């Protein structure tokens, strides 16, 4: 299906986004977010999972966690562009939740051949996360270091997002028949969670070890399902980066409009103004590419893979740039723990390499545009 001119972003989508913005503003304004996640500044403290499960329960109640469950499996039938708007709002609030990962799991399951049990769990309100990256951070199921035999998993999955918050894991594991997706109850026997110490205070990440953990196969071809879902996953992550980027931009614009040096507001100086305009342009680029990728996915366009890589390649650069300029333009105050900027700075730095960094996505893109390099 060709892409509609308006990205398929209709009134329902706009309504969902406003609702989400209002919800996050109301439930976790940034001062409360800071109190929640930044209560302990010790740099080498043990990792903790700071979040408000009651906010998540409300999000589930609002139906947000099932938005990537296909309509014929009990989902709501909203297009991915609408979901991107929701995630953009969450990125703007930096609210800690397992929403994005649960939506990612729904996306992967949508391309699995025996996913019903997974959809049922999500429809029941369960949250879940993908577990498939290897020790070096390759986000490709083919490099998973988990193996399945006789319905049990053994091995380790790395860089598992929101593992501290979710109820279940969708694990890529190698079996005799190939690499498949398996559903594992996080609190079941044989599942060991070691929280990673990450800079991002608004998310959590863990190394998950499986020791004869019970697992149910939901998709027999993990790579195929992941590849099909990947553009959608990348579109949503790019939307998150846009939301956080907008917060950084607007907070910085406010600051430099008020803060005076040399008898002028800082924003008078082009050395401040022009970089902020460049940040705005970068955010706009990523935003357009995020919604384009979501729309391409909705439409089943042949260029959907390309659109996904383009979106995350852009998002990785925008994450870095928006974060770096916000701290720099805030000057000394932006460098303090008490200023909220660092929460978003760190979130952006975490998003930068998540699900692949800019160089990796551009290499994938080049393989599509040029074909692989001749050996």
């Amino acid at each position: 299906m060709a892409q509609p001119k308006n990205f398929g972003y209709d009134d329902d989508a706009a309504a969902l986004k406003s609702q989400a913005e209002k919800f996050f503003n109301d439930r976790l304004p940034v001062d409360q977010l800071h109190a929640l996640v930044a209560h302990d500044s010790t740099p080498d403290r043990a990792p903790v999972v700071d979040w408000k499960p009651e906010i998540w329960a409300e999000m589930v109640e609002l139906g947000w966690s099932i938005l990537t469950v296909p309509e014929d499996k009990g989902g709501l039938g909203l297009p991915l562009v609408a979901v991107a708007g929701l995630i953009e709002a969450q990125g703007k609030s930096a609210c800690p939740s397992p929403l994005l990962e649960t939506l990612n799991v729904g996306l992967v399951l949508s391309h699995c051949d025996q996913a019903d049990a997974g959809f049922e769990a999500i429809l029941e309100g369960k949250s879940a996360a993908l577990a498939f990256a290897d020790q070096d951070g390759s986000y490709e199921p083919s490099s998973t270091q988990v193996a399945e035999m006789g319905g049990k998993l053994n091995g380790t999955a790395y860089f598992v997002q929101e593992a501290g918050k979710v109820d279940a894991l969708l694990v890529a594991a190698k079996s005799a028949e190939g690499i498949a997706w398996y559903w594992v109850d996080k609190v079941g026997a044989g599942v060991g969670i070691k929280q990673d110490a990450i800079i991002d205070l608004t998310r959590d990440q863990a190394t998950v070890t499986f020791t004869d953990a019970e697992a149910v196969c939901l998709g027999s071809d993990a790579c195929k399902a992941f590849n099909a879902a990947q553009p959608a996953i990348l579109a949503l992550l790019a939307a998150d980066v846009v939301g956080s980027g907008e917060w950084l931009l607007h907070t910085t614009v406010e600051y430099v409009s008020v803060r005076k040096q040399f008898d002028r507001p800082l924003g008078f100086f082009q050395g401040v103004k022009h970089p902020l305009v460049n940040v705005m342009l970068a955010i706009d680029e990523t935003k357009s590419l995020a919604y384009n990728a979501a729309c391409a996915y909705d439409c089943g366009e042949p260029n959907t893979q390309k659109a996904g890589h383009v979106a995350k390649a852009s998002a990785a650069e925008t994450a870095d740039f928006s974060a770096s300029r916000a701290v720099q333009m805030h000057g000394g105050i932006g460098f303090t723990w008490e200023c909220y900027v660092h929460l978003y700075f760190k979130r952006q730095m975490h998003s930068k390499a998540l699900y692949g960094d800019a160089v990796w996505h551009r290499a994938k893109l080049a393989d599509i545009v040029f074909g692989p390099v001749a050996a």
Partner: protein
Amino acid sequence: MSDAARVDTPEQAAFREHCRSWLAANHPGEPPVRLPQSAIEIMNSDQMDFLQAWQKSAYDAGLVGCDYPKFCGGGGHTDFQRIANEEMIRAKTPILPNVIGLGMAAPTILNHASDELKAELLPRLLSGEDIWCQGFSEPGAGSDLASVQTFAEPTEDGKWVINGHKVWTSLAHFASWMIILVRTDKSHKYDGLSYFVVPIKSALGKGVTVRPLIKMTGELGFNEVLFDNLVIDDRMRLDELGKGWQVAMTTLLFERGAGNLDTPRAGGMTSKASFTTSVGAVVKLAKETMRGGKPVSDDPVMRDKIMQELVKEEGFIHTSRRARVPALTDHPMRIPLQGKLQVSEMHQRTANLAMEVGGAKGSLYLGDEAALEGGQWTLGYMNSFGFTIAAGTSEVQRNILGERVLGLPKSK
């Protein structure tokens, strides 16, 4: 069926079909002369004659000015120009030569002139029979446009006498008419300006002198225009007296790509029929250019660099598309005001990258058979500075975005 065609109304679909069949039958084909990359580089009358003939035929077929009212010589339609543009670009037609007229003069006239003047000027503007130019910049008034000094003095019989010096006047050496910003009151900077349409060709040697300037590329393109006691009727004034700045803002809005009316646009074809400044063209170049026995497209570093530009280009395309979706935009001018800055810098980077793909061939120029695409990339890179400078430098564009969209304090 193309993507674009899917959302056409039945009337639009019929018009698109008309465009296609007319273009299939009437495309002017490979030109007999070397054509420039854009209208403002037209150097000689061979080039101009060919392109004017093409604009006239496209106008006669209803492909130019479709959204203008019928009494102005237009088609009287809504949202047809976009379709005509899409089809002309798709058909790789030549460019339309009257770019200043179509892009700046026409919308300004439509918004500010009397109906009488509209009916008098617009038909021959749209058809390309009258070429237009723009008299804004002066030696002392570039980015700071409001400091223009060219003066219009009222005469006793209700006319005006114009004296002054305009520069960077693209197409003036071909133009019949000029839109001009002049000072009528020296005591107010912004409130002392007026805006006229001036017949310059008929006044050549009688109050108007046009001197061509040569660009760094060696091409012609813009001019100095000197006014020496040129007398002009008051009916040629578009502003309420002293409100010329507001009229000029309409022109600039369209110049910066932020107007609400589609500018007729055609082309993509130049002397090398396939040449366009796009990342796709760099991709093609990289595949065809050999270095060390392998195509440049096999070099991972160059692949990465080209993909960086592809991301920028895709971003620009989809941002332009997003401009039409209010629910996905923030400040209403946030996207429209980006256009000129983004396009001009994108073309600059893209042309530079193409030269890098070419390596040692990058500095070969027009007329060298081994040059990249006949030297068009190298020419294009140099010409790109025209676009990052003219109509408000990139620096001024960033000020405008920072001040009007982000609300930052003014830098001046």
